[in-house]
């Protein structure tokens, strides 16, 4: 990775043949090894490619869709329920909207939901887990009890209940899923903190008189980032899947929002003759989640090979 930067001659005394100090060189090698290992996993590379494509589609999509008006539910009675053709690659729905356009714009919805759910979930779970793992004692017991209770109820049912209580909308569905997701991150972070707080460098920091907050943020947290990011990459696919499931049930995004799960649900009325209505949005969900899972699997393989393979 030649960035064109060269260390000055008076740099650290441990310069090696390449001119970089030893620590820097080691982390370069580390990164190169990790990248090589990732590339060997063909499925993961494919996953990365598809995810990249999806992000591009989500960002650029609304500007390049063939029928921009259809994405917000414009009514075209003359074009109702047309089979896939060159004019409408995915066919049209019951109000005449082009399904391909709606699926493309829906990608933006799905990806946003996935990201926001994870951000909120980690935003709640990681700090709570850090506090529980670092301070231990009663705080730990209380936080763990709460976590356990959330983990007792299957995710979809709890999310369904919360979303139904708050009222059907995409925003409430996101909140509901985030509330179901944070316990996993709390547990993970807590485990990391519990093992790391025993380390010598933490002891040293405390001896010097560093405050707890500083120790948590400056010393321990950076080392927990890798497992958390691996978990996030594996979770984003399921977050999107759960959001689609809630949309399918009807407590997530509401029409005319082009959310994939909701579209699959709407299309059910038209089975089997007008099969394309449910098929293509669902296919989009599958491909998206599959790509994220392959990517997450590959990342986990690189960063945590001792895990269940």
């Amino acid at each position, binding site marked *: 990775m030649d960035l064109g930067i060269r260390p000055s001659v008076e740099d650290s005394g441990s310069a090696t043949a390449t001119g970089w100090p030893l620590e820097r060189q080691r982390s370069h090698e580390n990164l190169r090894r990790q990248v090589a290992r990732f590339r060997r996993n063909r499925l993961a590379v494919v996953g990365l490619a598809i995810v990249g494509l999806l992000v591009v589609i989500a960002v650029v999509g609304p500007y390049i869709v063939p029928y921009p008006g259809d994405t917000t539910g414009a009514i075209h009675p003359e074009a109702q329920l047309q089979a896939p053709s060159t004019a409408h690659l995915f066919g049209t729905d019951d109000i005449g909207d082009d399904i391909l356009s709606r699926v493309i714009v829906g990608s933006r919805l799905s990806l946003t939901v996935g990201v926001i759910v994870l951000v909120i979930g980690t935003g709640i779970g990681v700090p709570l887990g850090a506090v529980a793992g670092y301070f231990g004692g009663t705080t730990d017991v209380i936080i763990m009890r709460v976590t356990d209770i959330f983990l*007792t*109820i299957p995710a979809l049912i709890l999310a369904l209940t919360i979303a139904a*209580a708050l009222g059907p909308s995409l925003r409430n569905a996101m909140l509901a899923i985030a509330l179901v997701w944070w316990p996993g991150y709390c547990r993970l972070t807590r485990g990391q903190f519990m093992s790391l707080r025993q380390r010598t460098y933490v002891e040293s920091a405390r001896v010097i008189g560093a405050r707890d907050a500083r120790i948590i943020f400056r010393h321990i947290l950076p080392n927990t980032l890798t497992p958390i990011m691996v978990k996030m990459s594996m979770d984003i*696919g399921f977050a999107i899947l759960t959001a689609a499931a809630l949309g399918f049930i009807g407590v997530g995004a509401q029409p005319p929002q082009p959310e994939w799960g909701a579209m699959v649900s709407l299309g059910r009325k038209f089975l*089997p003759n007008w099969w394309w209505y449910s098929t293509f949005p*669902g296919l989009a969900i599958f491909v998206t*989640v599959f790509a994220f899972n392959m990517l997450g699997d590959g990342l986990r393989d690189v960063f945590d090979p001792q895990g*269940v393979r």
Partner: protein
Amino acid sequence: MGRYVVRRVLLIVPTLVGLSILTFVVSHLMPADPAKLAAGPRATADMVQTIRHEYGLDRPLSVQYVTYVRDLLRGNWGTSIISQHPVLTDLRLYLPNTLELVLASMTIAIGVGVPLGVIAAVSQNRWPDHLSRLFTISFVSLPSFWFAIILQLTIAFTLGLLPVDGQLPTLTAPPHRVTGMVLVDSLLVGNLPLLWTAFQHLILPAFVQSIGAMAIITRMVRGDMLEILGQDFVRTARAKGLSARRVVLGHALRNAFIPTLTLIGLSFGFSLGGSVLVETVFDWPGIGLYAVNAALSADFEPIMGVTIMVGFIFIVLNLVVDLLYGVLDPRIRYT
């Protein structure tokens, strides 16, 4: 052993309490004022206040919580607006159907997943292994509701091989109710044609429901087998001259059983949760469909009832798995 059992059983109590607190909190999340809703749009402030007092909604939250728990324990889980029946009655009616579906799907998941996992482990890094990994990730990524629809389209509608939906054909009377599970009851009653129809209706939903758990079980069995196959006692057995099959089945598999047991328990719980989607697509009369219909009609008591029931089942399930663990692995009893 007895001490372990008692200790473990007592541990559920705080979890159950926690569950009730969680459901209590969630049931109070509703932005609408339940008293106003009950009173109707033309009620005066006085009428709303009367209703509030009648339902005990003006008491402090802690008192309301105690009333809530007391009602739960007494079996008063509210009434469903749609069915006009007590929620617990409805749940007793629908729960066996969900259990039937979940049990069938777990059977498929284990029956297919375990052998696949063993094959994948034994042929590590060769093509059967890679293929199984592809399948595993695919199955876990499939939206179950979409997969269900695709199977409906292809197998039921187009090929006509299996029924489209429902637990039984319309206008067919269910068998005399013993367990509440149609398949089991028709077998018990001896009504073989009914048993066959019920079986046909069960296949697609159970299969769709099974793929998630199947994928995870395959991966886990593979991982465990790989770990065990690398251990010394396996090498010893091979050196003794035992055939590969004897080693794999007799020695290795037995040791992989314990972690797989936890997994099966967990998968059962997740199947229970995910059954919501499969029941909706196949119009299967279980508690999942009950909850969904209630959610769409803003009928809140049934949803809470389903959540409590599923949570309770999950807790009991974890307890059973832990106890079985203690039986199978004596080391656990003494920690």
